[in-house]
């Protein structure tokens, strides 16, 4: 099938606009008339279209072959291999690549369900991510969180890909996620999937150390009225409202939510100036036909963060449309387009950052014969960043920059035997800083028994440069080499990861799951800041390298119908050093916990009561040249709820055993409590 994507890429350069007149007549024709003959005759008139015609014929042939050996029989065999439990876990309606592919992937994946989130008492996405034992979540201020998997947790944690309903939300400004802007209505979150380890082949750039995929419910499952209000000591107040319904076969919802959060505590235990509030509203509509499904959704948010120097505002909008056509259970095609913009002020640096993103993503999956599942995709992301920090001493130059990203991937999943599967794939991407990058991966998985899988993977992933790596200047104006300055990273290349993973997943019985994963990562060309020889002019370079290794264990167990527990432990260690001939201490690039553990218990009591608790242990963080050490802590959250038909009353204590504790830097999170009333009609 190699010829599949090549002709597509090599047809003559013609713009979309010039193509339109040729397509117009076909576009309005009934699909039955779009036969090979008509298409060919029409295009053969024009000699300059010859290559296009060739492409078309090849495409048509491919199309015929793909669907001549339609996969429905394979699909039936595939479904028949599943246990009843697995059948009961299949989503009935169409799903995009996002959910299905992640859970099928032989990788270290954890899924947090809506129920686990609700019963943990989490009030936003970063708090919900504390339920994933291999993510290190550290709250820095009332509105800032640092979240990483497999290390490198710092202020500029930049090796994680985060998506909300297929929309990528890490900012190419510094490669990390502005968590205060990523609010979703937790009530409508279907699940959060977290893959630790690289996933750059299928997924986008930045998927170096992990992927977080937040999936909200299809509106077919969010009909009716939902309202909630909460008040407390750290989360000062929260309110949410949602209404969902159905007109013919289009289901829809609209929602709004607001949250006001109190400040954290400064090192001297006085109130830090970091209280903030955020309002977000949005909509989603889903339509589903026999073969097609269309989703349209959008959000609008605005917030204000208090700071010592004044207030910093942020505002953003996004709108997304996704069209999936399913040909059979193992062949489908998805086209997704989204537009996203944010505008944030930073009062401390008297600057602002405006980011606009238009993303088009297409992918197609189909079986080849009965042994192979082939998948490919292309994507274009047009990004315009306007980082205006010109009134500040340090700045991003030039202020305005295009950060376009183009990518394509192919992946083939081959069944070597009944039980042994090999998945080979690569992504090739083009970014404005370093041009073309490759991210290949090879994975094998062995279904040792019906309920257990052993998998292994070797992957290369890259973290492409962000504006903070290349365009950062301190000060903004040119200074002589005799005085100290940072003059960007004109030669900064992508950071590279070579990852080796081994894992085992087993379902000893229908009430429990256990998963173990180990990894060894080798990093090349990691960030450094070094003076040019004989000067005080520092440049951002790729002067560090290192390795990391660790193990992750997760398990869940339904002890009784009314008592579920889940938990996990993660060990992580790394060694970073300056490359030969370089002079830089890379320790502060990762403030990583060596040991981390999490345990969640959910108990249904009689009389509609629920008693839930979460325990978290995070090992101490060592001191680096840029950050203070953080002592180890052990925190407990408790939730007691009463449910009566459409009413839910709950009281949640967060960090009940700790009067105050720091997770990163010096600011401390106070012990807190909130009460919440929810109505679902």
């Amino acid at each position, binding site marked *: 099938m190699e010829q599949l994507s090549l002709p597509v890429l090599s047809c003559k350069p*013609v713009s979309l606009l010039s193509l339109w007149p040729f397509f117009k007549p076909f576009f309005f024709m009934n699909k039955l008339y779009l036969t090979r003959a008509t298409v060919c005759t029409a295009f053969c008139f024009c000699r300059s279209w010859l290559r296009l015609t060739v492409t078309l014929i090849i495409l048509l042939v491919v*199309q015929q072959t793909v669907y001549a050996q339609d996969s429905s*029989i394979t699909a039936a065999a595939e479904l028949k291999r599943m246990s009843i439990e697995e059948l009961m876990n299949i989503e*009935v309606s169409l799903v995009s690549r996002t959910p299905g592919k992640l859970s099928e992937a032989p990788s270290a994946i954890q899924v947090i369900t809506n129920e686990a989130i609700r019963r943990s008492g989490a009030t936003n996405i970063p708090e919900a991510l504390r339920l994933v034992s291999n993510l290190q979540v550290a709250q820095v201020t009332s509105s800032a969180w640092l979240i990483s998997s497999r290390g490198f947790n710092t202020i500029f944690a930049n090796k994680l890909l985060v998506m909300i309903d297929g929309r990528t939300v890490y900012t190419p400004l510094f490669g990390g996620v502005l968590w205060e802007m990523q609010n979703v209505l937790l009530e409508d979150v279907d699940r959060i999937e977290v893959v630790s380890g690289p996933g750059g082949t299928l997924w986008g750039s930045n998927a170096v150390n992990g992927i977080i995929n937040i999936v909200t419910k299809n509106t*077919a499952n969010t009909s009716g009225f939902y309202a909630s209000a909460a008040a407390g000591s750290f989360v000062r107040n929260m309110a949410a409202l949602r209404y969902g319904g159905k007109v013919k076969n289009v289901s829809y919802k609209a929602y709004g939510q607001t949250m006001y959060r109190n400040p954290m505590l400064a090192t001297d235990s006085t109130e830090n100036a970091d209280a903030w509030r955020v309002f977000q509203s949005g909509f989603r509509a889903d339509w589903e036909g026999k073969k097609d499904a269309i989703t349209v959704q959008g959000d609008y948010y605005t917030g204000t963060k208090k700071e010592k120097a004044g207030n910093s505002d942020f505002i953003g909008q996004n709108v997304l449309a996704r069209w999936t056509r*399913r040909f059979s259970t193992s062949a489908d095609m998805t086209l997704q387009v989204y537009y996203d913009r944010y505008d944030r002020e930073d009062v401390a640096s008297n600057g602002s950052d405006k980011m606009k993103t238009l993303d088009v993503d297409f992918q197609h999956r189909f079986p080849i014969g009965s042994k192979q599942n082939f998948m490919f995709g292309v994507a274009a992301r047009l990004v315009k960043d306007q980082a205006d920090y010109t009134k500040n001493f340090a700045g991003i130059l030039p202020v305005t920059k295009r950060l376009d990203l183009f990518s394509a991937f192919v992946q083939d999943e081959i069944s070597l035997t009944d039980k042994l599967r090999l998945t080979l794939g690569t992504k090739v991407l083009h970014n404005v800083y370093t041009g073309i990058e490759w991210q290949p991966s090879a994975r094998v998985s062995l279904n040792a028994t019906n309920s257990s899988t052993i998998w292994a993977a070797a992957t290369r992933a890259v973290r492409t440069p962000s504006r903070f790596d290349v365009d950062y200047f301190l000060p903004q104006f040119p200074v002589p080499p005799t005085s100290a300055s940072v003059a960007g990273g004109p030669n900064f290349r992508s950071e590279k990861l070579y990852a080796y993973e081994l894992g085992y997943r087993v379902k000893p019985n229908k009430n429990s799951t256990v998963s173990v994963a180990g990894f060894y990562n080798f990093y090349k060309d990691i960030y450094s800041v070094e003076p040019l020889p004989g000067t005080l002019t520092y440049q951002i370079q790729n002067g560090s390298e290192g390795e990391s290794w660790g193990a992750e264990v997760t398990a869940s167990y339904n002890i009784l119908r009314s008592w579920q527990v889940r938990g996990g432990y993660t060990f992580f260690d790394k060694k970073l050093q300056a490359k030969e001939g370089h002079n830089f201490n890379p320790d502060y690039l990762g403030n990583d916990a060596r040991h981390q553990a999490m345990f969640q218990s959910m108990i249904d009591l009689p009389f509609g009561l629920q008693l839930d608790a979460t325990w978290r242990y995070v090992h101490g963080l060592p001191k680096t040249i840029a950050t203070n050490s953080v002592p180890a802590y052990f925190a407990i959250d408790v939730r007691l709820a009463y449910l009566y038909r459409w009413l839910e009353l709950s009281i949640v204590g967060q960090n009940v055993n700790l009067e105050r504790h720091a997770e990163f830097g010096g600011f401390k999170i106070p012990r807190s409590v909130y009460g919440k009333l929810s109505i679902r009609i």
Partner: protein
Amino acid sequence: LTKLFTYTQLFPSYINRICTGAVLYVLLFFTSSVNAQSISREYTIKAVFLFNFTQYVDWPRTSFTNGEKVFVIGVLGADPFGKYLEEVVSGEKVKGLPIVIRRYADVKDVKGCHILFINYKESGQLKRILHMLPKQVLTVSDVEGFAREGGMIRFLTENNKIRLRINLQAVREGDLNISSKLLRLAEIVNP
């Protein structure tokens, strides 16, 4: 929209090439209906469930004594499975008997059937149908209130996933034996 076009003007030429290819590709596939199945995903899964029931249910000896050496899965009413059900059971056997699919327009035609999927939209007729069927037929349906009305297994969709509701009393009356594994995964109702 003008903005969008200005965007396209800014593309390097190879992007245009890729776009052209992509547009062609998408149009070709999205406008085609070659061999595309018209059966919904929901019913592909339900079809596999029907097949799975053959593994988890024991029929009394008497239901195999009508002389025919086949195991019959029947569909009463409009058939939502198309040819898919045949694909699922092709080559499969139950107690050494090959599985065959039969379709019935009327309950009076149902004979020698082991599993019957009842696709009647009017639940009013349900009582009459269930009354007329031999007790040893494992009755399955996704009609609202099926298990309550005396049907044996009802498919219901919750959170976009398929759940089972089993009327244990009806199953016992038919002398059928459903394995505990299946029962554990289902919701048991008593009419």
